[in-house]
């Protein structure tokens, strides 16, 4: 009994494992360039796996559009599968991709993993799709560029447009006698002055990793431009290059100058923001998606009028201009080629045509340039200024590194960054660790 059972288990395991290899090869659906397949529109339920706040403007707007479309097409339904927190989302999306279970629409950044999916023909060519729908030219070039892979190909549709600023508290700056830093290299001195005045210099959400990773990207973006990380992630540039070293030294200096609140690595998003909005911290680096909580009359009056912002400072001999900084168009939406059919096309045409106007009416910055943001009723003058600045950005954008590095390198990069800034490892060993991590993991995604 037992023996035969054991044999059965072994045989079953073998057959399942062997059949795994077939998993990747089977392909249904359409070719990724066949954006206008023949056939009639047959309404059915489609799903969108997304990583956006459940009560946010994108989901609200798309839900309304989905309902409108369903009225005209009985039997249609747009189902939202939300996983708001990003690490869980990435895990879910990658496992679904491995299992071949991705739904019709799914969110992804232009990561090496997504590149791999695109190369296997699992995502629709969005450039062709938007052209074919006659929508391509309505988009802000910067919003589309953010979604592109390094070779310029486009596989994701942007739904937002954001600009990331350094918000600061004018009163606290006065108290410490500091000015808006003219160069990135002025940061450590600014932090020391603020510390002397008894103020937490910069509020940082260390728990979610990506905010600190932004700081790592700043120096290389200024000294070498956006190309550095594109080379780095393919192991063609090294951390031990001048740009990488400068970044590591700068981050270590920020840590030594006490720039971030004590124990930042276990402080979450809400707590970090509270440090700034309650007037305890002087600087807070965040994107325009927080405008509703930073440029609003609902903010504590004692802090409200002291809030201002500056954009990413340049450095001496900077390769990029002052109006070029982090301007993401958010996580993009990919269209699954295995489930693409006339219905998906028809719905996307309907929704994407109407989306910008509806979205901008909610006080948000649209990824297209043909609509104007409607300011909310409780907005402070800062709101309009922030929106205006976002409209005047240059050509290059500082891409967040978490969308560039492969997942393994990224995870280890984030881990080691904390140690570097906390002073637990010196810049030199940080640099050599990262070079060996990227050297080992980048090739896995090159194929």
């Amino acid at each position, binding site marked *: 009994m037992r023996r035969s059972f054991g044999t059965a288990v072994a045989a079953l395991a073998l057959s399942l494992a062997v059949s795994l290899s077939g998993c990747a090869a089977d392909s249904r659906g359409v070719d990724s360039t066949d954006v206008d397949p023949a056939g009639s529109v047959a309404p059915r339920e489609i799903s969108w796996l997304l990583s956006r706040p459940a009560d946010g403007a994108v989901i609200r707007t798309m839900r309304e559009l989905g309902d409108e479309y369903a009225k005209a097409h009985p039997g249609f339904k747009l189902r939202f599968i939300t996983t708001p927190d990003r690490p869980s989302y990435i*895990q879910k999306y990658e496992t679904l991709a*491995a299992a071949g279970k991705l739904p019709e629409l799914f969110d992804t950044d232009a990561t090496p993993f997504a590149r*791999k999916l695109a190369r296997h023909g699992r995502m629709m060519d969005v450039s062709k799709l938007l052209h074919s729908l006659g929508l391509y030219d309505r988009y802000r070039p910067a919003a589309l560029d953010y979604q592109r892979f390094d070779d310029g190909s486009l596989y994701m549709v942007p739904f937002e447009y954001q600009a990331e600023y350094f918000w600061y508290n004018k009163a606290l700056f006065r108290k410490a006698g500091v000015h808006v830093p003219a160069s990135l290299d002025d940061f450590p001195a600014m932090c020391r002055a603020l510390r002397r005045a008894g103020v937490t210099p910069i509020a940082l959400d260390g728990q979610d990793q990506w905010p600190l990773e932004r700081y790592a990207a700043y120096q290389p973006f200024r000294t070498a431009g956006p190309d550095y990380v594109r080379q780095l992630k393919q192991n063609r540039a090294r951390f031990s290059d001048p740009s990488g070293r400068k970044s590591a030294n700068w981050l270590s200096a920020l840590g030594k100058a006490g720039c971030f609140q004590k124990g*930042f690595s*276990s402080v979450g998003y809400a*707590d970090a923001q509270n440090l700034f909005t309650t007037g305890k911290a002087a600087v807070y680096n965040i994107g325009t998606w927080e405008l509703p909580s930073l440029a609003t009359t609902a903010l504590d009056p004692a802090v409200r009028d002291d809030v201002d912002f500056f954009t990413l400072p340049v450095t001496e001999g900077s390769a990029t201009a002052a109006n070029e900084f982090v301007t993401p168009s958010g996580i993009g939406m990919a269209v699954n080629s295995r489930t693409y059919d006339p219905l998906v096309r028809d719905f996307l045409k309907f929704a994407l045509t109407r989306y910008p106007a509806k979205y901008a009416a909610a006080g948000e910055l649209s990824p297209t340039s043909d609509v104007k943001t409607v300011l909310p009723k409780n907005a402070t003058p800062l709101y309009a200024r922030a929106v205006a600045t976002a409209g005047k950005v240059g050509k290059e954008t500082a891409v967040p590194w978490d969308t560039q590095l492969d997942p393994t390198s990224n995870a280890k990069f984030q*881990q080691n960054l904390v140690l570097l800034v906390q002073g637990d490892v010196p810049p030199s060993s940080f640099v050599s660790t990262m070079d060996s991590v990227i050297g080992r993991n980048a090739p*896995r995604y090159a194929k």
Partner: protein
Amino acid sequence: MLPSRSKLSVAVFLLPPLLLYGAAVLLPIAQSLFLSFFTWDGISELRFAGLSNYAFMFTEGDFWTAVTNQLGYLVVCLVLQLGGGLVVASLLISLTRGRELVKVLYLLPAVISTVAIALLFQRIYSMDPAGPLNQFLGLVGLDGLERPWLSDVHTVLTAVSAPEGWRFVGLYTVIIYAALLTVPRELEEAARLDGANQWQVFTRIRFPYIRPVWLTTSIMAVTYAMRGFDIPYLLTNGGPGQSSELVTTYMYKTAFLSTDYGYASAMSVFIVVESLVAVGLIVLVLRRKAV
């Protein structure tokens, strides 16, 4: 053996549990073993990799950090659960009233989900704003000890292990308490008449008497500590750096974030072997003493 049994009836009763156990436990073990000899990312073709996953595992610094951390986690859990359980159970024995109530109160945390516990302890350990632990230290004049418990590389491992120990202290207390009750009073009384003090009564009479139970609880505690995952994963996700990374969380990330299923499977196999060895050692040590 039941005289009227038939081969068929044995098979009928044995089949459902074997199917369930086979599908959920045995098959995955076999598959992990199989996958550990391959390289697979979920998208591309499966490629035979021989022993390279294992070779890499044994040389990777990060992996050994995780192993060391898991042992640290194990030690904290064992000290809190078994040591704490034994002490508290001994105290309970001397309690004359309210034992039932105290047992229930001790058991309360075991009912709470790990997600809730992680959320709770994130606040408890918080530094800025100061959470209950740091405020308490301030109140009793130990300001010097106030720190960001989850950010300090020296305290984080203990800080993520303690909640796991804490939630099951009650469980082990209840079990050990029940065992202590079975120690015959006459034995203890006799020992005391012979002049044995409290400590001797404990080491010579009580503990040897409950050794079999101690064996069971040790195995339980060790296997649960080896499975430890939820709280470190949710509280710090292994950070800062790798200071609170366990083999289990590292394996999970390797599989579901790095999509390196082959390497993750090699780590799974390691975890099983490690658990078997640990339990084997416990049995060996405690059995030998019993002889």
